[in-house]
């Protein structure tokens, strides 16, 4: 049967595609890439779960993967509202799961991450939920890490054991929905079928024991500079007033590892250029302990894990015109936030109780008036004060850091290339 070709428009431009083709596919055939995550070409009807492919037609919004092209159809795709909606879905998935990219086997090859890079997600606008999710080691070959599952449903539809028995299913409902693996059916999968399951998972939720080592940097799918060109960047709003005086910068490391500060120093010869433009005030780099004057820019590494962090952060907000959160820890908690899914009491018992069994009288949790007191969880900096910029990475790329700083100081534009924009 010959396919009927129809004409349709995207953002007013005319295109052609076979009638009834999914809009994602039809757009792709015409050189337009609509972001997608759950879409898996041969699953029909399409999954339509992630909602990162939103477009509009006749004033109504649709998931492009579930929309079939018709003659005369007119589609809106590249509008500020829709660009923001698609980006928001990606941010929502980051906030919903527990995505510690630096510790993830799939990092660099992960579609969620890749989309975050493409859409320029520096921070999730939504509060992280930090739910306690399991890592299921019970299956024979596969490990399911629920922290990373985005409930795309691909595995539910696609992974079948001999006799066409599904191996995965959704369990529960609402905010409690999870994907669960069937241990009996999983055991029947061949090695190849297990590998296929791992590869069809867009994120790092399905791993095969012994086969999931991360690939080296530079060789991963989203390391390539040409994978979609530059990262989309929101325009910079707060550049500090350009004057003759040197700009004053303060820096601090809160609940961080100083890795971000190392990255700051990592720009080699450009450091000399920068030194001409700025002077440092309160900073571990200068060892100045208190603010001695008003600062133009405050650079924050690390989130807040104790009361002292909160105090320092509030002082930075009070003394600096522009605050820049650098690195995943400052942005949303980062690796230290791994503790956020369990109670502080449990953490302390693990660290000072059960672990130190040689202490006769049980647990001794350190506390002293000179010691900072711990918060119930790690807080990203923007949960405590307003933050003006976020530079992702663990640690952030040195040239990304300086591009943003120079922009703030000199008011010049900047663009970030893929290799400089990372969450790990």
């Amino acid at each position, binding site marked *: 049967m010959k396919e009927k070709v129809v004409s349709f428009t995207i953002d007013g431009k005319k295109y052609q595609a076979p009638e009834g083709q999914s809009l994602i596919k039809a757009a792709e055939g015409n050189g337009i890439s609509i972001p997608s995550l759950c879409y898996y070409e041969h699953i029909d009807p399409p999954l339509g779960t992630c909602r990162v492919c939103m477009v509009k037609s006749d004033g109504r919004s649709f998931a492009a993967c579930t929309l079939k092209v018709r003659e005369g159809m007119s589609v809106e795709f590249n509008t500020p509202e829709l660009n923001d909606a698609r980006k928001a879905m990606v941010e929502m998935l980051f906030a919903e799961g527990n995505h510690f990219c630096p510790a993830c086997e799939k990092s660099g090859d992960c579609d969620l991450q890749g989309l975050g890079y493409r859409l320029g997600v520096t921070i999730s606008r939504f509060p992280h939920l930090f739910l306690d999710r399991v890592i299921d080691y019970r299956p024979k070959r596969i490990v399911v890490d629920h922290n990373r599952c985005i409930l795309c449903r691909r595995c539910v539809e696609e992974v079948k054991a001999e006799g066409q028995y599904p191996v995965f*299913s*959704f369990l*529960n409902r609402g905010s409690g929905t999870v994907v669960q693996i069937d241990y009996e059916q999983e055991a029947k999968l061949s090695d190849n079928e297990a590998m296929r399951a791992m590869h069809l998972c867009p994120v790092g939720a399905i791993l095969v024991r012994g086969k999931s080592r991360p690939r080296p940097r530079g060789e991963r799918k989203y390391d390539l500079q040409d994978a979609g060109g530059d990262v989309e960047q929101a325009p910079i709003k707060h550049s500090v007033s350009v004057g003759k005086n040197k700009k004053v910068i303060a820096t601090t490391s809160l609940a961080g590892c100083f890795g971000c500060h190392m990255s700051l120093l990592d720009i080699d010869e450009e450091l000399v250029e920068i030194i001409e433009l700025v002077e440092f005030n309160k900073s571990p780099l200068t060892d100045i302990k208190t603010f001695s004057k008003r600062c133009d820019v405050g650079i924050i590494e690390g989130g807040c894990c104790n009361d002292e962090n909160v105090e320092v952060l509030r002082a930075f907000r009070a003394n600096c015109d522009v605050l820049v959160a650098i690195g995943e820890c400052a942005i949303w908690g980062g690796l230290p936030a791994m503790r956020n899914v369990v109670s502080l009491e449990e953490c302390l018992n693990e660290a000072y109780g059960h672990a130190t069994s040689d202490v006769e009288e049980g647990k001794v949790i350190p506390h002293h008036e000179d010691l900072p007191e711990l918060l119930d969880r790690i807080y990203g900096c923007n949960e405590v004060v307003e933050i003006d910029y976020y530079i992702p990475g663990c640690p952030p790329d040195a040239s990304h850091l300086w591009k943003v700083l120079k922009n703030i100081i000199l008011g010049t534009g900047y663009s970030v290339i893929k290799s400089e924009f990372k969450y790990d």
Partner: protein
Amino acid sequence: MEKIIDHSPLLNLLWARQDAKGFISDQDIHDIAEHMDLSFIEVEGVCTFYHFFHRRPAGKFIVYLNNSILSDFSGYAAVRKALETATGAPWNGVDRKGLFGLFDTSCIGLSDQEPAALINFRPFVKLTPEKVQQLVNALRNGVPVDQLADHIENPVRYVPPDGKAVVFREMVPGRALQKLTQMTPEEVIAEVKSSNLRGMGGAFFPVGEKWELCRKQPKTPRYVVCNADEGEPGTFKDRVLMTKLPELLIEGMILGGYAIGANQGIIYLRAEYRYLLPRLEGALDRYRQMGWLGKDIPARKHFDFDIRIQLGAGAYVCGEETALLDSLMGKRGEPWPKVYFPVERGYLGLPTIVNNVESFATAARVIELGAEAFRRLGTPGSPGTRLLSVAGDCSYPGVYEIEWGMSVGELLDLTGAQDPLYLQISGPSGIGISAADRHRRFSFEDLRCGGSVMIFNHKRDLLKILVNFTEFFKEESCGVCTPCRAGNFILSRKLELLSRGLGRGADLEEIRQWGNLMTTASRCGLGKGASNALINAMDKFPVYFQKLVHSKGREKGFDLDSALGDYREAVGIK
């Protein structure tokens, strides 16, 4: 093309195990999976979707207390506490002897008699701590639940005067059906179309048009499905209708079946209304005896049509028609990505009409009274009448059959509302209006009411109402799409911030933006409508919301003392 998966018996198989011992064990799931040739996980996936199926022992007496906002304002907290004290069971758990299990459930369609609960699916209304104590004692002493259950009143408080009632008027069984002997299916469709009757389940799609679309499908057999899921909190008109006039619903379904050329009708009845089963089954039997249901219906030659009832198992989203169809097929009730419509591919992939209880009942009246008489009532966009479930702060809660076009003020006066401030129209998914909007009219053109009016007076806390709604959606989302599954959770966190007094002006703006995102990106009406009430209330009561937030320069609302609480407790600092 997609493969149609039919696991239709699954829900009933799960019910049988649930009923037999109060929960569904791994072994049960195994047995059912084996019996139906499914994998364990498929059966468990279905089982855990519905909140009336338990995976752990849930007690000999399973108590579900409604946690809707109307229940809350009528004494939910005290009743809950009394239940815990009297039974010794923790909330969401079972007492040591395994006698009582105590659980929350979303609105059970008894909003006119709150606080209400189900015990082993028998209704108990207007609960008080004293009544709870007596009930628990009686149950302990072996009095059967059936004997203790309340006799439910079904008040119809108002019908339009001068014989203008459409639904609640004299019922002569068979009168509407008699017309079939002289009408072709096309004529039935034409009559319903010309009446301009719109669906009463909330989406307002013209009933005749839907039937016609279905009839035009080449595929057969076709199916008639009645949506008796009535899950929207505050709505109970279908309960009253099915109790008082089950005949009318049955006649409407027979008409629908005749019109589209179907042989099978299914009533999808929410499990909360399980106590209506005997009544409905009895009515169906009478119609079989009368020769209006069954094979080669004597009253209308060459027409086979019968109706069966499928019980749901606790999931609001199954009121969404495509989720309902999946549930009928023994699956998780997840709304479909709208690639096909039920009239093209519905139950078992075959052409299906899904209509609300009141839609069928009204369609029967349209045929009985004639489209012309029907059109003379109501407004041009919404002819006829509408059943409203009215509850909350008023003297006369119950069902009101109003002529479309009645004003909010007229209704409020009829209900004896005391000092009303805020009305929630069509449940949490609907919109809120100020009680001062007395001039607004219930009609397709203005206030498209889905069947519920909740009245709140000046003493009620608006934020508490909205938090309750958001919790409801968070619980009842099917979980399949990001903006609804995660979005409702995220909104609930945000509202918590407001409730704790830590909100800022920017938070209000974010709530609005995030709510709009959920509307844009959600897959079905649940997620699309989940933030309606919230955004609407912010529009209507800006002063109230401004008072909830503070501004503290560029610092956020972060409560250091509360964040240090856990540590101080762990190390013993006061």
